[in-house]
């Protein structure tokens, strides 16, 4: 990842946040619309949760050796 990649992502995020707090300030079709930057939080936390939950499930029972069914 080069610096300009991060800058581009930052610009996208900031644009979306500005739009959220200006254009969509009164928008309320779901309860979570009252939580500021909800989708950013949901995206970040959801991503981390998925990575670790799948890792945990993989360790507990899902992942096996490739020759599991041949043995």
């Amino acid at each position, binding site marked *: 990842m080069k610096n300009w990649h991060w800058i581009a992502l930052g610009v996208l995020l900031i644009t979306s946040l500005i739009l959220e707090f200006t254009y969509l300030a009164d928008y309320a079709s779901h*309860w979570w619309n009252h939580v500021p930057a909800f989708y950013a939080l949901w*995206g970040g936390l959801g991503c981390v949760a998925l990575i670790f939950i799948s890792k945990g499930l993989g360790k507990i029972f899902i992942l*096996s050796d490739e020759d599991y069914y041949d043995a």
Partner: protein
Amino acid sequence: MMLELLSVPAVILILGAFVLPLLPERARNTAFLIFPIMALALIWTMPEGNLLQTSFASYELELLAVDGLSRIFGIIFALITLIGGIYAFHIKDLGQQSSALAYAGGALGVTFAGDFFTLFIFWEIMAAASSYLIWARETQESDKAGMRYLLVHIFGGGLLFTGILLHLSSGGSLYIESIEPAYTTANIFMLLGVALNTAVPPLHAWLADAYPKATITGAVFMCALTTKSAVYVMIRLFPGWEILIWVGVIMAIYGTIYALLANDIREILAYSIISQIGYMVTAIGIGSELALNGATAHAFNHIVYKSLLFMVAGAVIYSTGTSKLSELGGFAKKMPLIIGLYMVGALSISGAPLLNGFVSKTMISGAMGDAHLEWPILSLLIATIGTFLHTGLKLPYYTWFAEKKSEFEVSSIPANMKVAMGIGAFFCILFGVAPNLLYNQLPYPTDFQPFSVYNFVEMTQILVLAFVGFWFFKNHLNVDSTISIDTDWFYRKPAGVVRYAFVKIPNRLFGVAETVSLKLAKRLSAASKNPMDLILPSFTMQGREIKSDGFTAPISAALAFILFGFLIASLVVLL
């Protein structure tokens, strides 16, 4: 009647499967393309209504029922057969070409079937024809996987047929129409039969088992046809069945978790199909016009981007000879075009604005919003994040960009494969920027507007933050050479025990019985050489050689008496 049958798109493709072997080898690849083009033109121009009937026993079958819903599914099935044909233009394998045409014919037959019998027949043609696309890989692994695939589909067909027969015997209509949500035995069997082809867990394991083992070109047809034709049937039969809302959510999350764990690139994409179909199943469960439009549009878009992704995965396998993330990496500079095309598909499936996934995902979430299904919305967003993680980030990062993990050659890819991928990417962008081209073909009229500031804000925040999460925690994703235990465990692991109980044990029993009876026969024959030795041991003299004919005189005397008796008796009778 025979000529009228040619107006059925399915018949054209199935006829193509029989015509191909009669053509010279170098004409087959071009001929392969002609049949889907003919079918596509026909589907495009057919008027609406029930166009062709035939009687079978005491039933009047509807072979060609055309309406907005069947037409859009027919268009995409024919289109993807054409794109798949271009992708497979370089292969010289008659078996694969014919079975791919018959398979697509089956999917079109299901789509335009107006009654359950016609539907069932084409349903089974699909199962049989597609199995060959796995076997054609000709590895030991694909032989076994193909057989499992076929057996599971025969089981699914059995469930569906049982449901149909029960439905008919309880006074249900032979014609395909939506079924009221009632959990009767007939409905449950039909739902299970359709759910198996839709890959609803726990009936889904055939998909992730078979698709990664199919041929490079075969998988492109498979990822498009079987599950989506089942989605079509589900839209027809079970709209508004509320149980499907949560079934879809579970599918979406389930597929995501397994895709995150998978090591084989086509297995990641296969599990991601299950996850994407979850969106469609949820929409079918809602059952509103917007939701069914959303399910249809998403199935359409899904076929476009998923086949593109499978084509790129196939290109990677073609070029490097491996499909495992644990062996790939470090050759991004050698295929920039392919990576670009892949990212178009990957961003489409992740729902990035201005690509086709966005225009149908927002439609489904709009329908969910109208129905106030808040938790399902949030759950499907988790699946969207997961989709971006595994298809949009994990797969390309570890395939091309991460450090090289084994030695492999990168050979060049035939031009026709690139053209097919280019067409796929073109449609991803086309329907993404001009969604009305798609919306106008949907079964219900709609003025849905996907490009709202709200949808843009939502998707941008989610995708950007998901990327950040990936970048910092990517080392926790599995890229080891592992396989995932799924519900196929229940029929794969006990296979050894079943084989032992029903093959090995009977085999051994027969073996033992054979040895015992042979030994017995040997002893009997030995003993019968000199029965007096057993009956009256003192009669036989020690040291005297035993002759097997030593007792013939007494026996001859006895036989002579018997014959003499017969002679007397016959004389008495005759005289």
